[in-house]
């Protein structure tokens, strides 16, 4: 039918000779089947890391923040680095599902579910750090504007840290309902296929009794579109506000007006890298190679090249301005000759290598469409983006205006443990998700099958050749 037309020059997004039923079977398979050995190995490793993290968190709370490597000058280090790193990773999911929906990009449908899951799990990890860093996490509710016995003393709405509370909780909760609403038809599919009564009960509960009436679908599409419209500025606002934690301070190196766009680009950069890392493994483990294809990998790499380019230009301008001001204080910022040649030179050069040099390999088409190449580069970007935040925080704080206070940050095993623990926690959540949730938005993929499916494209385009 003509309404399913797509230009023949566009490569298919669903490979193989698939029918609607095949999509159902392929996406239900990882859930209905048994987990393989690799899954158990990965899950055990994640669980061990997570347990170690819990131990380190309990030790921190029981003994005090003194067990971290923080000192009088560097009062923020790994904790806030990890917080910003995880929030940044959490940006790709909503970008893929919201921004790409507004731009009508069909390739988002194979990856949006997992990217959103990653977003939600990453924001969980991010949220842990400020709460642990409070020292008295049982008072965490003090960040909420609720009446209290102190006067009542309200929260400070002038503070970017409070803006963060509002931005991140809005982001987490809106991403969650966006994700869950999209999941309803897919849970319904699993519910209607389930043979075991327990499984049926669980998926019936999760699907909220979704029945797929014409009116429901009409509302579903409208809600998805409006949520995408709301989530697009929301996702940009979150890292903008995170950057204001630094930019509204008066530290040289932090007090920078380009921080908001630069942080947002960096967040998307790191988020897409993490999606690449996770999906590179997941498509193999769950046998979904026909849905997450080379084309998807290439498109994601293009987004990585664009946002990575923005980040590189931001570094260059920060470096240039630091030098151009002629101010000696600027020579102690994270993007300066001082940083490149100082005690933290190794961190500076790691950032340049992992975040700017290595991603340039993606200009080569062969690497851009290669699964292994993309996977390795995405790991490099994950490391590079961690160093970016560490450099911004630790290098800037290590050298203040008073040389006698200059100091260094040395992480203790607890700093390392909490970080590893959040990676483990993230792994545990994602692995459980991959076994129990439909990892691809099958209803949406079915709706594009006739447009972008390989077999349908061949049928249509065959007559022209």
């Amino acid at each position, binding site marked *: 039918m003509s*309404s399913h037309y797509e230009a023949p020059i566009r490569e298919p997004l669903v490979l193989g000779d698939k029918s609607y039923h095949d999509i159902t079977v392929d996406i239900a398979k990882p859930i209905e089947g048994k987990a393989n050995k690799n899954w158990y190995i990965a899950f055990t490793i994640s669980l061990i890391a997570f347990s170690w993290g819990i131990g380190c968190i309990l030790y921190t709370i029981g003994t005090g923040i003194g067990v971290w490597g923080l000192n009088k000058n560097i009062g923020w280090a790994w904790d806030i680095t990890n917080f910003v790193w995880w929030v940044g990773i959490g940006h790709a999911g909503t970008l893929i599902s919201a921004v790409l929906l507004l731009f009508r990009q069909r390739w988002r449908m194979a990856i949006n579910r997992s990217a959103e899951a990653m977003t939600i799990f990453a924001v969980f990890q991010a949220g842990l750090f400020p709460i642990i860093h409070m020292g008295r996490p049982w008072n965490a509710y003090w960040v909420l504007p609720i009446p209290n016995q102190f006067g*009542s003393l309200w929260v400070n709405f002038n503070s970017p840290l409070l803006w963060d509370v509002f931005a991140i909780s809005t982001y987490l909760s809106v991403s969650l309902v966006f994700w869950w609403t999209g999941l309803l*038809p897919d849970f319904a599919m699993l519910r*209607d296929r389930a043979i075991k009564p327990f499984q049926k009960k669980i998926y019936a509960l999760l699907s909220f009794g979704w029945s797929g009436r*014409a*009116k429901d679908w009409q509302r579903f599409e409208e*809600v998805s579109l409006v949520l995408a419209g709301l989530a697009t500025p929301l996702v940009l*606002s979150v890292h903008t506000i995170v950057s204001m934690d630094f930019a509204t301070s008066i530290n040289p190196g932090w007090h920078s007006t380009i921080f908001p766009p630069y942080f947002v680009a960096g967040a998307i950069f790191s988020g897409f890298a993490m999606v690449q890392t996770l999906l590179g493994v997941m498509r193999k483990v769950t046998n979904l190679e026909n849905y997450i294809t080379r084309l998807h990998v290439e498109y994601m790499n293009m987004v990585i090249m664009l946002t990575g380019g923005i980040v590189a230009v931001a570094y260059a301008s920060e470096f240039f301005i630091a030098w151009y001001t002629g101010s000696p204080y600027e020579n102690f910022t994270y993007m300066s000759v001082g940083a490149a040649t100082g005690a933290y030179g190794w961190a500076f050069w790691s950032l340049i290598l992992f975040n700017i040099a290595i991603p340039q390999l993606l200009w080569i088409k062969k690497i851009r469409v290669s699964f292994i190449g993309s996977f390795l580069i995405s790991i490099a970007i994950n490391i590079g983006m961690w160093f970016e935040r560490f450099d911004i925080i630790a290098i800037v704080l290590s050298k203040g205006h008073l040389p006698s206070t200059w100091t260094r940050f040395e992480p203790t095993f607890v700093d390392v443990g909490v970080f590893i623990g959040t990676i483990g926690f993230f792994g545990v959540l994602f692995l459980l998700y991959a076994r129990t949730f439909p990892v691809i938005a099958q209803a949406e993929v079915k709706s594009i099958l006739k447009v972008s499916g390989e077999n349908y494209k061949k049928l249509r385009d065959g007559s022209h050749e």
Partner: protein
Amino acid sequence: MSNKVIHALYNDDDILMDAVKKVKAAHHHIDEVFTPFPVHGLDKALGLAPTKLAITAFLYGLTGLSFAIWMTNYMMIEDWPQDIGGKPNFSWVENMPAFVPIMFELTVFFAAHLMVITFYMRSRIWPFKEAENPDVRTTDDHFLMEISVHDNEKELTALLQETGAVEINVIDKH
């Protein structure tokens, strides 16, 4: 009075769309259509009114914005004004730039959540709700059209057969 309905199952969205148009042209009322994925144009073919959820989202957003303005004004200006970083604490308007992030976030928070809750309520979906699709295949690869029977069972069956239904069942609905 018997509550007989016909369930016609189709296995293709294009055949379903043509069938809907034919049944409509024959002046039969289609009670419901269950599909495994959104079929574009189906709501128009069925004559469903456009949804007003986007309008409710706009109104909820305005509510959130108003709430944020009220809250920042009450807490920071009226109830306990404090001098924080020399920011003006005697007038909301002058302190407003610092409140923009809060105003924005609460607008989005209210609009998104209340719209989704409205959607769930209007479509009657919530935890522990029983599913109402009459055939489990409608979440996989089948499309089901439900039509009430008013002593015209034979005529309807013949019409539906003609439209390419793969299965036709007459069911007593309670």
